[in-house]
């Protein structure tokens, strides 16, 4: 029994923390919000130099050949400082899928650049007025000779304006789903969308007869559902750690403030209304951390059903918990917590950002139920879902 990050992982964490402290923690996000994205670019380069972008890339593609658990400290540290960007989508979605399903050409094209910090990939899934249900995908691809031609609209694409390539979820002619790698191009029509979490850039991409070489198909035709399902496991394990990082910082902020802020001649942390609230936050944090560690661990060690149960439960729990914690943190800070000046709101907005990202808590709970074999009885599926007493 050894359920903890190992010494190497903890040491790497301490390098990252030192570096992110040095660059001012949330200062990067704050500059980003003001429109100064420079600092963010500098920090991403710095992190790449530390090796953060090479961790889970195979050694033959110039990476470190490490695994999902080794990404945990990176995500946690990024979560602590509300870092902008699509490191998550790149490392915990694009990389595992490229590694497993990419052609040698694709690997060579993307992985070494990612490892060196020169490429970041985003995910184009959601379409206007839809949710994440895959049966709703309308964005279409057709084969024309040696090219694939895409038509459709994707919205809320993270870092649509920064990403070096997009994994685009498309419907092919025989009604299956597939994934296409689309490289960034100035001709691509991107409309920025204003996000409540201003440390995130979102954009709507319109593909109008957009042609890419056939070699940009990721995996085989009609394999989209499987690839997404697999990618989503990696992404949500990583996301859970991102959320845990945010939670940890928020608990730390609340604890520190409760120790120094005095009212009625007492540090407010002496009042049980504050103390016990912070304790409940801590409970949520530790619960989320254990679930997220385990989720990443299953990706290295367990079968798909175990992975699903572990990842979905971590994702669902951490998503809700982070919103709760970030909200309480504002209340504990009182008036000052309501200002733009203090970081509290950055965490709240980021927590909300992830609430429904790639599916809601409800979706993941339902997926969890399926993964655990809590089957719905098929025969009764068509019965009226809601019955009401009194014959109404």
């Amino acid at each position, binding site marked *: 029994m050894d359920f903890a990050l190992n010494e190497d992982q903890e040491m790497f964490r301490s390098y990252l923390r030192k570096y992110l402290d040095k660059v001012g923690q949330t200062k990067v996000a704050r500059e980003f919000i003001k429109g100064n994205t420079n600092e963010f670019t500098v920090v991403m380069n710095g992190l790449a130099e530390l090796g953060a972008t090479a961790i889970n890339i195979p050694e033959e593609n110039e990476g470190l050949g490490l695994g999902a658990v080794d990404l945990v400290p990176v995500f946690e540290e990024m979560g602590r400082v509300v870092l902008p960007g699509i490191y998550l989508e790149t490392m915990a979605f694009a990389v595992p899928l490229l590694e497993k399903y990419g052609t040698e050409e694709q690997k060579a094209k993307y992985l070494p650049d990612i490892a060196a910090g020169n490429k970041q990939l985003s995910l184009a899934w959601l379409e206007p*007025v839809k*949710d994440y*249900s895959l049966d709703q995908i309308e964005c279409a691809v057709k084969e024309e000779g040696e090219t694939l031609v895409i038509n459709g609209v994707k919205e809320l694409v993270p870092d649509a304006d920064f990403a070096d390539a997009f994994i685009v979820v498309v419907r092919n002619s025989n009604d299956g789903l597939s994934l296409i790698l689309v490289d960034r191009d100035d001709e691509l029509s991107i409309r920025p969308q204003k996000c409540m979490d201003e440390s995130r850039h979102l954009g709507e991409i319109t593909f109008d007869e957009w042609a890419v070489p056939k070699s940009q198909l990721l995996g085989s035709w009609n394999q989209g559902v499987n690839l997404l399902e697999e990618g989503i496991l990696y992404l949500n394990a990583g996301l859970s750690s991102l959320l845990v990082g945010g939670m940890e910082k928020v608990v730390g902020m609340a604890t520190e403030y409760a120790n120094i802020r005095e009212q009625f001649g007492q540090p407010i942390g002496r009042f049980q209304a504050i103390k016990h609230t912070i304790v409940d936050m801590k409970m949520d944090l530790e619960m989320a951390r254990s679930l997220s560690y385990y989720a990443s661990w299953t990706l290295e060690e367990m079968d798909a059903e175990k992975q699903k149960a572990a990842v979905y439960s971590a994702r669902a729990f951490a998503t809700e918990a982070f919103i709760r914690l970030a909200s309480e943190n504002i*209340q504990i800070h009182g008036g000052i917590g309501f200002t733009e000046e203090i970081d509290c709101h950055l965490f709240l907005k980021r927590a909300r*950002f992830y*609430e429904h990202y790639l599916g809601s808590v409800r979706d993941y709970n339902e997926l969890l139920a399926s993964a655990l074999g809590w089957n719905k009885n098929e025969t009764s599926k068509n019965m009226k879902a809601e019955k009401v007493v009194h014959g109404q």
Partner: protein
Amino acid sequence: MDFSISKQEEAFRQELRTWLEENLPEGWLQGNRELPEDKADYAVFLRKWQNTLYEGGWGAISWPKEYGGREATLMEEIIFYQEMVRVQAPPLINYIGIHMVGPTLIQSGTDEQKEKFINKIITGEEVWCQGYSEPNAGSDLAAIQTSAEKKGDQWLINGQKVWTSFGHLADKCFLLARTSTHPEKKHRGITAFLLDMNQSGVETKPITQMDGQQEFNEVYLTDAVAYDADIVGELDKGWRVMIALMLHERTGIGAELFTLEKRFDDMVAAIKDYQINGRPVMDDPSVRQKLASFYARFRGSLLNYYRNLTSTLKNGHPGPESSIDKLAVSELTKEMAGFMMSLQGHRGMLWKEDAPIDPVWQDEYLFSFGQTIGGGTSEVQRNTIGERVLGLPKDMGR
């Protein structure tokens, strides 16, 4: 039990309704309710609205007739707010002046103070703010450190106030300052001053909120000057003045509650219209369940308010139960706003012009975090209810 309103009250409502239809700013009733973005224009607009109210006889309805009021009953005041919420009238820039400072001066101001201030409050000529909270005295208001020292015939005031609404627009401030530094109990030795904001010793700095708005200010006082004539009540007895002043706010959180009622109706209407994947959100049983439970709590809060109002009508003044109203409304407002965020799915993160339903829901959500903090945090309300309504033992330091 009797929820009906009297003929006289009904007539009052009709008169107000008719007047509002004729006198609201142009286009307002048709839904064009934009306030000027520019701060100066904004102030001019709101002062003008206060003046319009005044000229119509609605400037300060609960005041005595001799001061321009109409000696409205508590029920009429309630009706006034119901109607204001109904037409979503512009905010009252001089709320502090009309509901707190004016009545206090009418009751216990000197003749000179009445002469100098009261008419300008009701006309909107002078806007008032409130100088209470300080960086180290929020929940613990009695801990204020802003000092007033007598030099010659001047009181020199030094310190910092915070969370001063409309501070940057205000002409006058009802300010609490410490005039005795070592009192036996810290709420003693505080004096209430009527401070002129338009002087070099007063500097205001807007606070940017987490929703990006600036509605509050820090007020820095550096040898700001007041005179004996600007003291309300007695020297060192400002705490008592402040308590009496609060009792003048006899409609309690009525306006917030009516706003919540409107917000709830708007929410239901928005949800009825909202579809995701072509599926009406109102079809989702869990949404209906949640709405039903909000309905019960919001109706319960409103009915509680009416029950407390009944006892205010009997006793002549509001009791500590008003903390129950405040706690219920603020917590519910926050929770409802959070639900409305969740309901919009990932697309709910889109903001301002990109918001999927109406950006007001995103703005409301962020703003709602101030509700359980401002005007006494929920923790302080719980202490008040525990100690003053239930008779539980006093907390540490109180």
